[in-house]
């Protein structure tokens, strides 16, 4: 409990720093909100009037206070680009991208863990080489290229899955999964390499431990020894890496969502940046940072559930 409070305090502290950085950077960028609204060719007096009414002439600290206060009280303001309130916009897009992130991780782990375990059990044999080659291939080919190949194969040639578009999962869950599948697979193949290597090395370490020998000496079948005795001990570092990869994932998502015309968080961030929609940029960056941090917190908490030494220690 003390641990949880400590961790949450740390999250709040980090988010505070992130909010300052986000706010600072968007203020250093040339052009301001008033300019964005009225255009560069507008009347300087009208521009000044708008600035005054938007409070852009107030000291930065006051502006920051207003922004963070709005953020905390749910007043996220309106997007200049979409002329819509930001909060519902972000929550809708976050749901769309959330589906991709979850599916990507699920696919990556479902492929990487068995592959890593397989490689560890047959260390320095052909199975090991095959597994690392497959993993490296996924890592070295850029994900947008994998994405194009997947579109060609599954959408254009086989016609099994849609090549682009987004379906709201609250309306048609199955449709949403179908649309999210190819972008998730493209991202997952890129993430797999690290997770496979991590599973392999963690498993090799664990399989050499004495308790594995003891389990075998007890007469437990090899299947039980590997999957029930060894894997729970090896999964910790794999989860940590997976948690860290969520951060990178939000970077890759920008490219992949554009490729698949999937209107999620990546697409939204891209549009906001392209059009200097400053309120939207500030909110999206802040939300992504918060999500990444909370996911990593969740991973650490999960770690404690699995490993009694940390839970009770």
């Amino acid at each position, binding site marked *: 409990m003390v641990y949880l409070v400590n961790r949450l305090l740390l999250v709040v502290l980090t988010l505070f720093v992130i909010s300052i950085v986000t706010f600072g950077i968007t203020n250093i960028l040339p052009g301001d909100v008033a300019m964005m609204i009225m255009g560069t060719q507008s009347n300087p007096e009208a521009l000044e009037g708008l600035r005054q009414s938007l409070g852009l002439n107030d000291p930065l600290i006051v502006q920051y206070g207003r922004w963070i206060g709005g953020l905390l009280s749910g007043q996220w303001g309106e997007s200049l680009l979409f002329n819509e309130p930001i909060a519902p916009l972000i929550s809708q897009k976050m749901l769309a991208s959330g589906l991709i992130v979850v599916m990507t991780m699920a696919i990556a782990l479902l492929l990487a863990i068995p592959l890593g375990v397989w490689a560890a059990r047959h260390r320095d044999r052909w199975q090991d080489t095959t597994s690392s080659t497959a993993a490296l291939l996924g890592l070295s080919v850029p994900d947008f290229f994998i994405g194009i190949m997947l579109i060609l194969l599954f959408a254009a040639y086989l016609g099994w899955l849609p090549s682009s578009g987004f379906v709201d999962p609250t309306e048609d869950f199955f449709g949403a999964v179908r649309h999210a599948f190819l972008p998730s697979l493209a991202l997952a193949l890129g993430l797999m390499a690290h997770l496979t290597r991590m599973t392999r090395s963690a498993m090799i370490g664990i399989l050499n431990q004495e308790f594995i020998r003891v389990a075998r*000496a007890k007469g437990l079948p090899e299947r039980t020894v590997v999957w029930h005795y060894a894997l729970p001990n090896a999964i910790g570092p794999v989860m940590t890496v997976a948690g860290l990869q969520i951060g990178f994932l939000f970077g890759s998502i920008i490219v992949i969502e554009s490729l698949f015309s999937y209107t999620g968080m990546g697409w939204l961030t891209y549009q906001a940046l392209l059009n200097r929609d400053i309120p939207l940029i500030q909110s999206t960056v802040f939300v992504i940072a918060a999500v990444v941090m909370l996911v990593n917190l969740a991973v650490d908490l999960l770690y404690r559930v699995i490993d009694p030494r940390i839970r009770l220690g």
Partner: protein
Amino acid sequence: MSEQTGTPPPLLSIENLRVEFDGETGPIVGVKDVSFTVNPGETVCVVGESGSGKSVTSLSLLRLVEFGGGKIVSGRLWFRPGGEEAMDLAQMPAERMIDLRGDRIGMIFQEPMTALNPVFTIRRQLTDGLRRHRKLSATEADARALELLQEVRLPEPEQRLKQYPHELSGGMRQRVVIAMAMACRPQLLIADEPTTALDVTIQAEILGLIKRLKREFGMAVLFITHDMAVVAQLADRVVVMRHGEKVEEGPVERIFTEPQAEYTKTLLASVPKLGEMRGKPGPEPLRIPGQPEPVAPKPPTEAAAARPVLSVKGLTTRFPVKGGILRRVVANVHAVEDVSFELAHGETLALVGESGCGKSTTARSILRLVKPTAGDVVMDGQEVLRLDPGALRRARRNMQMVFQDPFASLNPFMRLRKQVAEPMLNYDLARGSELQDRIAFLFDRVGLPRDFMRRFPHELSGGQRQRVAIARALSVNPKLIIADEAVSALDVSVQAQVLNLLMELQADFGLSYLFISHDMAVVERVSHRVGVMYLGRIVEIGSRADIFENPRHSYTRTLLAGVPIADVTRRTLKESAEFKPLPSPVFPVGQERAAPVYDEVSPGHLVLQDD
């Protein structure tokens, strides 16, 4: 396989076992051609040094050797459980082998700290074998698990079932591992160095437990060990192995009283036996057959003894335990508490105790490898704890250290010549041809061939590496050498040679040793004076005779009672040895322990008054 009429057939007969491992340049032979038998209810000890193939033999019986890349190439492993048809374990299909493991044959291993799965409760680990082999229901298995913990005399067994391995001490874990191996009432228990990683009092408890279980359940025990003292205490019959072959086999009395093989004689001569130094004035080297007569160190002269080379007063070292979000100090580990002693010229003072007693931290504090919290250390007239960095560097020339693990204490990328030269270059003691001569002299002195100078550490054995470490320590002509478990990682025959070397160097150069060790028999052999440490304090200090022949403090007596003696005529092992567990050395911030008060029972023999 002909048996005499009247005697029951052996439970296990190993016939011409040969095991190979895949190597880069062809197969490596782990066991060459080994045959011996184990009778029902008998304890057979397989004894040998590293690389003798004793563990490979034991792993072959359960065919666990296959998981380490080994293969049984030829030979038969006949196993004949009570009245049943003999079966050949070497030829048995893998599926049937799984049914046999943990059911008819149980096995325990060396490392109790890692022998249990950290993510499962004790209950789960005790019951999964039972449920598999005996098809028990969950409640039946739980009841049996509780019974098993009672059999191995684990305190509060109901509580233990719910706990995880990290909540138990090493000795408790080894009891759980034994309970696991005993779960299905095996007819054969294979124990592979089960007490090597344990402190002596815990070792005595575990050996006693194995002895009792063997008697109560009439099972046979195949006990793998490197320790002749354990063999003497436990074995009915002994198999001596070396380089993958059986050297000798026989009843334990005959092996100890009339060893036939040259190797067995060497092995026995190399083991210091507790109590054999009774009445002798000073340290005495071990006489090893085939080795030149060793040189005994001279006792320090009275003039020298009066002038201490090292004087330690009130040395205290504490390590902070940090916690909370601000990483504040929440408690202190009292590693060394108010330790005082003096060490004379040409004298060996041993500090003994169990793990965590603070003996190594004392050594490191004296050299300021860790920062002491308080106290005075006077080395050759200099206040070591008050020296500035430059002066400390110069002072360290006079005090060198030899560490436990010769595999880790030498730089793997550096030739041995360079490693021995480095301290001399460091202090600018010699250059050019003078330096080369001195290196050659040091190699000669520690008994290493000169052509080893061009080698790298990985080309040497453990004992040879330790000789290099000693040469390196000697290179700067120190007055004091701190040997921190310097012979503990070595095989017994090598250990004897290194001990003799240390004593010989002491005789030649008048060195003083601070000898840190957990091994009472070794300490009895090499030291002039002995300090016994417990929970950061010296509880008793005195001459070797004082400590070994007239121990006064209860902990010293406990420690001595736990030591197995390598002598079949003195079987002191008790079936129900119970020792008090070590209390925790962690104390809340600000808590001070009262200064220790010692009774001087005879001149120089100090005994701590208990709180």
